[in-house]
């Protein structure tokens, strides 16, 4: 019994210590951001790596998610003769929930895991240590550009995902199933609000998810054991922890932004 309690205590202390290190890591990242005013080229290169290179998966996923929403929405609304509301259903689903959440999950799978692997391998191959021994701090030089680029890329990717999703829904609903195009856009225009829906969903939510995804990815890479197994474990942890964190924070943010409490 004592052994179990001891083990449990050690596990909890270990997790708390890790959480503390993660928070200190975030503070160091935030403190290093000012360096990017001096070297904006570092940020631009990372925006390309985490943002532009994520576009294919975001575009294709957004299109299919929008098409599925169009199909499902039509199948349910047609019984009530409410297919004119399909534009609103597709748009609100994407703007408030599916856009930010799915984009962040896809980002974690593509760019987050790549960030963890990259930083973990830089550690395993002593690139970070050699940088420190050359008197170059890896936080402003390596980590901060990736962090800021990711935080900026996720809201932009969310906007693109949502827009393409709406087009996918339009394609299925209007061009394939015969829903009135004017009603599709007019209902959407009438019901979707700029601040309550678009700013809260596409901008604030996705920015929070971007911070979470990049913070976790970089921290896991930085803390990875410098072995192939260590980097592999860290990459897996990044995807799992980021996914859970995004879904948990999505509930919190939804409750705050759109909830009835």
């Amino acid at each position, binding site marked *: 019994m004592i052994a179990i309690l001891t083990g449990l205590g050690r596990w909890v202390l270990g997790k708390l210590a890790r959480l503390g290190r993660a928070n200190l890591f975030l503070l160091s990242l935030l403190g290093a951001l000012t360096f990017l005013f001096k070297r904006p080229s570092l940020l631009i290169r990372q925006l390309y790596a985490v943002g532009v290179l994520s576009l294919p998966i975001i575009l294709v996923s957004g299109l299919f998610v929008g098409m599925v929403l169009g199909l499902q929405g039509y199948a349910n609304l047609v019984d009530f003769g409410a297919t004119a509301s399909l534009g609103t259903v597709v748009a609100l689903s994407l703007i408030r929930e599916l856009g930010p959440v799915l984009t962040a999950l896809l980002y974690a799978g593509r760019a987050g895991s790549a960030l963890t692997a990259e930083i973990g391998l830089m550690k395993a*191959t*002593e*690139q970070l*240590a*050699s*940088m*420190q*021994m*050359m*008197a*170059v*701090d890896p936080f402003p*030089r390596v980590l901060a550009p990736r962090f800021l680029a990711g935080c900026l890329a996720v809201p932009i990717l969310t906007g693109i995902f949502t827009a393409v999703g709406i087009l996918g829904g339009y394609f299925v609903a209007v061009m394939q199933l015969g829903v009135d195009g004017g009603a599709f856009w007019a209902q959407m225009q009438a019901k979707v609000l700029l601040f309550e829906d678009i700013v809260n969903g596409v901008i604030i939510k996705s920015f929070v998810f971007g911070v979470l995804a990049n913070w976790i990815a970089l921290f896991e890479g930085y803390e990875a054991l410098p072995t192939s197994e260590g980097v592999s474990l860290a990459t897996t942890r990044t995807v799992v922890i980021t996914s859970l964190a995004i879904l948990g924070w999505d509930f919190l943010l939804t409750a705050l932004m759109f909830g009835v409490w």
Partner: protein
Amino acid sequence: MFATVSPVETTWPDDAPLVSVRDLSFRRGDRMIFNDLNLQIRRGQVTAIMGPSGTGKTTLLHLIGGQIRPEAGRIEVDGRCVHELNRQELYRLRQRMGVLFQSGALFTDLSVFDNVAFPLREHTRLSERLIRTLALMKLEAVGLRGARDLMPAQLSGGMARRVALARAIALDPMMMLYDEPFAGQDPISMGVLVKLIRTLNDALGLTSIIVSHDVKETAAIADYLYLISEGRVVEHGTPEELHHSPSAWVDQFMHARPDGPMSFHYAAPPYADDLLSRDAG
């Protein structure tokens, strides 16, 4: 006469050392890596720190470079205690140190040229034209000016280490730290590296510390050797002195003899007991 050293009594060289390690203790977890280690590195010389694998040679380089902190004792580099420096002072000191990592540690997303130019771009405000000239000079010194446009993945192990060496000397450091520079090299690459380390040390007026267990190559270029084992300096002296040491341990290490006081086997319970034990694990 060679200098035989007991862990307690140590006689130092006369001139002022560049690196001084005094009463150093360091542990990883429960394992004591260094226990009252003492050594001094003289300026302008190539000093080798040798010993069997796992004795903490690389850890000692990390301690000298301020990457980790000792549990007790002092490490002074050019008169400054490394682990008492703040971050800014430590980084200033590191600009005067060059380190050749065992893996080379080249930045894989940068070309050979950009790797060598990296410290110049980070720490100087020189024009790009001057940086180009300096980087090409460093690459010429290691014989790889023609490989400037290659990426690290396109280099052989020996070439990668020479590029890393060019990068390490880019800022004209006062001291070079070499971590196992000859490990895993083919005979030609090894010969080139051996010659380069000695030549660069003399031509640039460096002080070099080589951590290695390649006895023949290291002894060929070192002015002074320290042999460490079990966390202490076992013996030190010139290569010639150590080659003729009466110590059975030194004799076994320097001449790579399979039999001697150094055991081949890791500490374990009696063989027969282990085989007859009922424990599956």
